[in-house]
Structures are given as structure tokens and as C-alpha cells.
């Protein structure tokens, strides 16, 4: 007899989200899934009628975990609308801040938001510290080859500042600490004790648990050091300051009071070096050890979902300043990371996948639906709207009365809209970017930069280490998590690369960080100006769309990565479609209905930007609406 179970709230994410899953208990199979964002703040509405130069500050508060990214998208959108090209130094600095975000956000996600789906402090108590030290050495030995891809472009890094402590004494001390916590009965963040009963926690040997928990604690302290570039260039973290036209952090080698001088750059240099170590000697190695066991020993290939069908990226890291996005599309001529594209059907391998570039001409094909969202459109809820014409009109009467038991997927059921590209939902995120770049290079559509080449090398190296073809390991919950780790390694290299460029440019005599010729709104001229700012956020493709009328914002729409992934289902001329969360949940087994660890693991692999709630119930007595994820692909 099956049971109905709700998981609410799912923790270790940002914000509030609800998931409901229908499980066929006999087969441990998910037969229906609902993903619902349960919070709305109205930031798009609040941004109207404000000074476009302030928009970054408002937009940045969309998320304090991936802080910086919405500020970046916002200044890019306003600069696109106002035809402002930023100076070289600010381009490099913004790229360092973005790469820093990749490094920090991905690492915190793996250790502090995702690790406890794989490892348990209770299992770690069973480990032998001597064997754990041996395991640590073996892991460095076995996967260490990938560390060779790390590169210090500045050439200043003398030696590894952070390196795993492969000694029994270290692991014994960590184990003693865990033991003390567990025995005290005050488990704090590890409570309640019975949480750790799921059979999947037995998959990994106790020594892997102890190693990962030790690194969980170590990285909890290290993570703060990684974001120091944000503090130097933006004054604080979370929520560093940005500027339309460049950056605020003026450079002067003559002034001790200058925001950026040699001493201040030294702080950035050290943080960039620590990031290289933390990612390469901890994150990637732990990640590959866990992935190897799950894939090769347990054949745990669940959770691929929509990524198997289609993924989307916008591309990022302009090597040099670009003119704009929406007029000449020069942005896409300058980027180093060519994840700008759509890939269909990667599940059959890169040879058979269908690649399409994303560029200026693609902008018109982005739209959002509100069919199942708690919003209305004045043109009717069945029509999609392009974000420049986008509307955010809440529909409070459609939010079911509380307390909620189960949501009805036949009605509106989420505060998230449903974004589409060419009428179709797409998965976005590090996995999507890796698929687009990989297929683009392999099929010869992209003239690869060092970034693209590194992506391909990483994927091929991991495929070889695991002994599994790329399309098989990548298109899974594990693959999504591995892609994020590989991208963190890429981010650490990008950090160092752009820091070197910044040094070189300052050395050449250029200290400009802001183009302030249009700082005064009276220089903007009358009439309407539209702009878009795109970026690759840690969680995926992000776009901000602004319409400026005179000197104030007339309309502002943000299509955030989690919106692409968490969106409710839609039905249009291409059929019934689901977004990535629902599709991935349908592609995941659930062994113990009351302990849906696998669902948490799969949803966490997206690094959700919401707090969430998972409802699990069986089909007993419930009408199950059957959607075919693949049906929408025949375009």
C-alpha cells in the first residue's frame, strides 16, 4: 500500500519551491511530478519608474547566493539600451568577479548544499581514519591527472596553499568532533538523527563519507576567502557594487586611498590562488571519487531528463569589451566561452546531436508563458510574450487557499513563468553549457578558444577516467553535478587569466575603469530604448530585458536560470512540454517513498535558487496526467 508523502521545505537551496511527485511504489518509479515556486516578491514591478543606473542594486537582490550575477546582467542590459561600451579594465574586473562567483558558488553548492545527499556524518563515524588517509592518497593518485588542466596565468603562485591532509590524525580529529556532536544529541544542522536511515547512504564506503565530511568542514571556512575579489572590487560580499558604464573601483598606482592599487591587487591574487587549490585538490577529486562509485558500481544514471532532449546557453566571458547585444550582436564575437547555442538530442552522442548557435538573431525567439503560473497576461494567458513586451501581473485569486495538501496541475500552480526558446522549454546550467560547447567544437561549428578547448579536454578526460561515453555519464544527476565541478575548474583558470590581463593592461598605462560619458541621464536623449543583458549565471542562462523611456525604466523583465528549469508545464503548437525539474524527477527512481533522497539529490543537482517543497504521493486515487517529455522534440 502506497503512502502520500510531502517534503516541505526541501532545504539546502535558495528561496521557496514546492515539488509534488506521484510514485508507483511497486516499481519505485516517478509517474508524475509538479514543480512549483511558492514565493513572489515583485522585483520586476518594483523596478518600474526607477533610475536605470540603480537597477543593478534592485536586480542583484533577486539572489544573494549567486550574488553579483543579476547586477552584471542588469548593467549589461542598461548599457545595451544606452549604447555604452565599458573600458577594458572593467571588462576584465567583471570577468574576474564572474569567475570568482563560479568558483565560490559551485564549491559551496557541492560541499554545503549537495554533499549531504551523498554522504552522511553518521556513516563517517564507521570509518577507519588510517584507511581514510590511504583513500585520500589513492584519490589524488587516481584522479590527479585532471589537476594538470589547472593553470596559473599570472605565474605568481609559488606552491599549493591548500592541500588535502592525508593523515590519520586529521581524520581522527574530524571523526571525534562528529562523534561528540552526534552523542550530545544536539545535531544542529545534521538533525534529526533518523534522517540518515536511507539505504543509499550505504552505497559509499565509510571512508569516503569521512573524507567528504572533513572537506565539508574545511571548505566551510575556506569559501569566504574565495570571494575576496568581490570585496576588493565591489566593496562587499554578498551584493558587491556595480556601475553602469564600468566599475566604481578606480585604479591608481599613485594613491594609497585608491580602491585598486598594487596592495589591493595582492588581495585578489591570493584569493585567486586559493581558489585554484580548493577547486583542484579538494572539489574535483572528491567529486570524481563519488561519481565513479555511483556510476560504475551502482549504475546510477538517473536524472538526465530534459538535458537528453535539449539544452540552451547564451555564452560568456568577453575577452575584450564588446559594443552591444541587440544591435550588432558584437558580444558574441568577443566571448571566450562558446556555450551560446542550443543542442537537441545529445543522448545519441555528439555526432547525432543537433546544434544551433545562439546570437543576436535568436533574441526574438525568447518568450514566457503564464498558462500554469500565478499571473495573468492582458492578451490572455495562453499567448507567450516576448520579455520586452513582458508583463508581471499577479493572479492572487488563482493561488489555492492554505493549508495546501496537493496542488492541481490542471490549474495554475507556480509563481514561476515558463520561458521558451522557439516555443520549447530547455534545460540551462553548467551541464547545458558543457553540452553546447562540446558538441559545437566536436561538430566544428565553433572555432575553439582556450576555454572551449579546456571544456572538451575535461569532458574527454573524465569520460576516459570513468570508462563511460560522454553522453551517458553527462546526461544524469551525477553528470550535472560533475559538469558544475569541471566548470569550477574552468572558472579558477578564467580568474587567473583575466587577472593577468588586468595586470598587463594597467602596466601599459591604462587605468580607466568607467566610461562616464553617459553618467548624466540628460545625455541619453528622449524616447524609448530597449536593451538586453545576457550572462551565464552559475545556475544557467540569464537574461535581463529593459525598456527605458526617457530617463526611467518603463519595463523590466528578468528570465533567470531557475525559471527555465523550475517552470510549470505548458501546452502549445509543439505539444505538451515540461521544464527541466519536472522532467528530471520523472527520470529518477524513488526507493523509499517517505524518504525521497533521490528526488532531493536530483533537484539539488540543479542548484535551485528557491526554497522548496516536494510532495510525493502515489497514483492511488489521484488522476495522473501523463506527459511525454520527448513529445515536444519533433520540431
Amino acid at each position, binding site marked *: 500500500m502506497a503512502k502520500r508523502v510531502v517534503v*516541505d521545505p526541501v532545504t539546502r537551496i535558495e528561496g*521557496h519551491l514546492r515539488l509534488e511527485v506521484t510514485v508507483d511504489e511497486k516499481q519505485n518509479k516517478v509517474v508524475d511530478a509538479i514543480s512549483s515556486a511558492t514565493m513572489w516578491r515583485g522585483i520586476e514591478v518594483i523596478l518600474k519608474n*526607477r533610475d536605470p543606473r540603480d537597477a543593478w542594486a*534592485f536586480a542583484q537582490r533577486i539572489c544573494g547566493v549567486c550574488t553579483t550575477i543579476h547586477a552584471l546582467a542588469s548593467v549589461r542590459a542598461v548599457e545595451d539600451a544606452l549604447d555604452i561600451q565599458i573600458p577594458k579594465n572593467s571588462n576584465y574586473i567583471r570577468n574576474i568577479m564572474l569567475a570568482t562567483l563560479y568558483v565560490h558558488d559551485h564549491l559551496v553548492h557541492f560541499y554545503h548544499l549537495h554533499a549531504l545527499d551523498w554522504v552522511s556524518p553518521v556513516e563517517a563515524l564507521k570509518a577507519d581514519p588510517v584507511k581514510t588517509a590511504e583513500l585520500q592518497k589513492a584519490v589524488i593518485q587516481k584522479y590527479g591527472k585532471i589537476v594538470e588542466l589547472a593553470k596559473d596565468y599570472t605565474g605568481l603562485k609559488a606552491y599549493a596553499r591548500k592541500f588535502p591532509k592525508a593523515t590519520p590524525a586529521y581524520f581522527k580529529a574530524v571523526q571525534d568532533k562528529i562523534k561528540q556532536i552526534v552523542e550530545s544529541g544536539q545535531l544542529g544542522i545534521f538533525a534529526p538523527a533518523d534522517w540518515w536511515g536511507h539505504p543509499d547512504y550505504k552505497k559509499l564506503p565509510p571512508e569516503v563519507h569521512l573524507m567528504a565530511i572533513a572537506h565539508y568542514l574545511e571548505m566551510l571556512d575556506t569559501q*569566504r576567502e574565495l570571494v*575576496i575579489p568581490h570585496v576588493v572590487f565591489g566593496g562587499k560580499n554578498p551584493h558587491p557594487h556595480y556601475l553602469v558604464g564600468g566599475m566604481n573601483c578606480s585604479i591608481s598606482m599613485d594613491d594609497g586611498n585608491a580602491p585598486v592599487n598594487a596592495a589591493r591587487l595582492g588581495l585578489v591574487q591570493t584569493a585567486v590562488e586559493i581558489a585554484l587549490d580548493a577547486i583542484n585538490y579538494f572539489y574535483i577529486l572528491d567529486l570524481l571519487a563519488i561519481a565513479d562509485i555511483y556510476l560504475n558500481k551502482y549504475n546510477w544514471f538517473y536524472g538526465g531528463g530534459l538535458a537528453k532532449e535539449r539544452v540552451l546557453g547564451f555564452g560568456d566571458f568577453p575577452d575584450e569589451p564588446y559594443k552591444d547585444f541587440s544591435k550588432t550582436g558584437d558580444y558574441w564575437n568577443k566571448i571566450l566561452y562558446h556555450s551560446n547555442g542550443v543542442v537537441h538530442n545529445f543522448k545519441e552522442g555528439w555526432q547525432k546531436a543537433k546544434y544551433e548557435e545562439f546570437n543576436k538573431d535568436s533574441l526574438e525567439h525568447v518568450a514566457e508563458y503564464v498558462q500554469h503560473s500565478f499571473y495573468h497576461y492582458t492578451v490572455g494567458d495562453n499567448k507567450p510574450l516576448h520579455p520586452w513586451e513582458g508583463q508581471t501581473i499577479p493572479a492572487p485569486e488563482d493561488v489555492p487557499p*492554505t493549508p495546501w495538501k496537493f496542488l492541481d496541475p490542471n490549474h495554475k500552480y507556480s509563481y514561476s513563468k515558463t520561458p521558451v526558446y522557439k516555443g520549447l522549454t530547455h534545460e540551462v546550467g553548467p551541464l547545458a553549457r558543457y553540452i553546447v560547447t562540446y558538441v559545437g567544437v566536436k561538430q566544428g561549428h565553433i572555432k575553439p578558444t582556450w576555454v572551449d578547448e579546456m571544456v572538451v579536454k575535461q569532458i574527454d578526460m573524465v569520460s576516459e577516467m570513468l570508462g563511460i561515453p560522454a553522453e551517458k555519464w553527462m546526461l544524469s544527476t551525477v553528470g550535472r553535478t560533475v559538469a558544475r565541478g569541471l566548470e569550477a575548474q574552468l572558472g579558477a583558470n578564467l580568474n587567473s587569466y583575466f587577472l593577468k590581463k588586468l595586470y598587463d593592461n594597467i602596466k601599459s598605462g591604462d587605468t580607466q575603469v568607467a566610461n562616464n560619458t553617459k553618467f548624466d541621464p540628460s545625455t541619453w536623449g528622449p524616447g524609448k530604448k530597449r536593451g538586453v543583458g545576457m550572462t551565464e549565471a552559475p545556475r544557467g542562462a540569464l537574461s535581463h530585458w529593459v525598456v527605458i523611456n526617457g530617463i526611467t525604466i518603463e519595463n523590466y523583465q528578468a528570465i533567470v536560470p531557475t525559471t527555465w528549469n523550475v517552470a510549470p508545464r505548458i501546452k502549445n503548437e509543439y505539444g505538451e512540454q515540461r521544464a527541466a525539474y519536472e522532467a528530471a524527477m520523472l527520470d529518477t527512481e524513488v526507493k523509499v517513498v517517505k524518504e525521497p533522497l533521490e528526488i532531493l539529490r536530483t533537484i539539488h543537482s540543479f542548484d535551485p535558487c528557491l526554497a522548496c517543497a516536494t510532495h510525493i504521493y502515489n497514483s492511488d486515487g489521484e488522476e495522473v496526467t501523463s506527459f511525454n517529455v520527448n513529445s515536444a522534440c519533433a520540431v
Partner: protein
Amino acid sequence: MGKTYWEAFKEAGISRREFLKFATYITGLMGLAPSMVPKVVEALETKERIPVIWLHGLECTGCTESFIRSNAPYASDLLLNVITLEYDETLPAAAGILYEENGKMVRSGLVGHLDKVVEEYKGKYILVYEGGVPLGNDGRYCIVAGRPYKEDVIELAKHAAVLMSVGTCASWGGIQAARPNPTHSVPVSDLVNKPLIKVPGCPPIPEVITGTILHLALFGMPPLDDQGRPKQFFGNRIHDTCYRRPFFNAGQFVEKPDDDAAKKGWCLYKIGCRGPTTYASCGNLRWFGGISYPIQSGAPCIGCADKNFWDKGPFFQREKGIVLPNVEVDADKVGVAAAAVTAGALAVHAIAAGIRHAGEKDDEH
């Protein structure tokens, strides 16, 4: 249950010497005189660890992120030795589990644990709020565990020892409460009838959050100002402790981002800096152990710890009514800056304080 800090430290293998070092360090962190060290040591030896329940409403989780950036003490020390974070939605392993039995939803997993913690520590836990509380649409702009967030805000306050709002959203309403406040969001203090410590900031400085929690754990309520903010962290305007203050006094101002004055690190007041009206520790504590704060990185302060700061923009527009100085330089050198001076020769400090008070009256809700 309920070990003292010293007991917990001992068990963790921390020496008496290290323990005393820690006590000295946090004494300084909390803005207390060195003569208070013995009192801190005594408190650490005798006070039990206090459970913390941390709720999340309409927020961006930036305050939690700031909390884990603390280096004095480290986040790991805080979470494992100083507090017991019994409920939170960002770090805990467990998720909330509910299932239906006899037509009723049973609370299990993390939410079941929450119920037990509230029962077990009745009257003893610190309740931390992060995020604003929407009242619009019966609170259904923020639904957690199937019910409006506002219900938890009120219910859990009843048995808390101390309430604390972390960040500008929980303290003042925050970004969602900015015009036109489409969700009708309010600060926590509008809904609870208990003393509430307000720690505003978007987000607050990491050590301001942890310092306030430490003070609570060791000494009980910290001294608060008339708005409920800990005096030790919100007693000064950023302007009072700003390293660029001498340039303000000398009439040396940045006129545009990245001009020559910006490179020299002159005062940002004329491009909108809210330092003169914002009470916070950015000037003295700074961020990340003293590395920087927005002004040091060349960005005009936007006043993120200030009530309703979101509606006091445009941020690059100079705040009106603050008298520009004319005290340390002669008229020639003040140049453009002096030309902008419109009011009389009253003391800058007094005027600024007066304006601030006037503004607060307007902002009361």
C-alpha cells in the same frame, strides 16, 4: 543536554590557552573593553549553548551567505561549537517531510524536528528571521510547508526567548516593500509583540550578525538604540568613521565615477553616498576582516542598513540638505564643491543628524 561553551571546547580538544584567546578575541569583536575579558570567560564557562531557529521569508538568502562569511569566529566554530542551529532552510541536511494520514498532514523530517525543538526548548531558543513578511493575498505570496510564512512568524515567536531580525528585509520590510510594495510586505516587528533585536543591512556585515548572536548567548540582550538595533554596531553613521571623511571636511569630492578625484579616493558624497545618514559599522569594522567596504572600493554607499533606503533613490543623486563643509581649506581650493553649498555654517554633524530624524518621522508606518 546543554553543554557550556568551555565544556564543548574541551571536548573538541581545544586548550585552555586557545579558549582564553578566543574569549579575548570575541570581547574585542563585541566592542567591549578589555576589562570585560574575565566576564566573557565566566560567561563562556557557565552559559549553556542556545538553540537557534532561523526562518526564511521573502528574501534572497544573502544574509545567511553573509553569516557563513564570518571569520571571527569562523562559520564552522559557530555552527558546531557556539550555537546549535536546530532549524534553518539553507544548511541543514534534512528536508521537511509531511505525509497524509487519516486525511491530515503529519509533520516529519525537518518540520517534525522543528515542532520537537520548540516543545523541548520552550522559552529558550533564539528565533532569527531572515526576509520580509508578505501580508497581501492572505500571506500567500510566500508559502512554506503549504502555509503562509506569516503564520510561522507569529506562532514561533510565542515561545522564543529572544527575537532577532537579520537583514533589512526582516528589519524594515526590505526590497519587496519598496514602492509599490506589490506583496504588501512588512517587517517582522509589525507582527510580533515582543522585544526584537534588529540587525539591518543588505546584507549585514558577517561579524555584525555573529557578534550580536554571541552577545545574546553570553550576556543576554545587547544594549539597543531606540529602533532596536545593537548600539555597538549601529551607534555611528558610516560618515563618522569613514576613512574618506577628511576629504569631505576638506571639500574634496568625486564629481563623476572614475574621475581623477575617484582615483585619489576622495569623498563620494556628491555622487550620492548615503554615508552621512546611514548607521552601520562599514566604516569601522569594514567587510572581511577590514579589507574593504563599498566606499573604499569607490562605490557610493546606498544606505542599505537604513529604513526604506530602496525608496530614497536615485542612488547617484546627492542627498539634499546636508551642508557641505568649508572648514579645512580656503575658498579657492573648495572650488566647485563650495559653489554647491547652499545652507549656512552650522555644524555638519548636527545638521545631518537633524535631517535624519526628520526623515525617520516621515518613514514611520
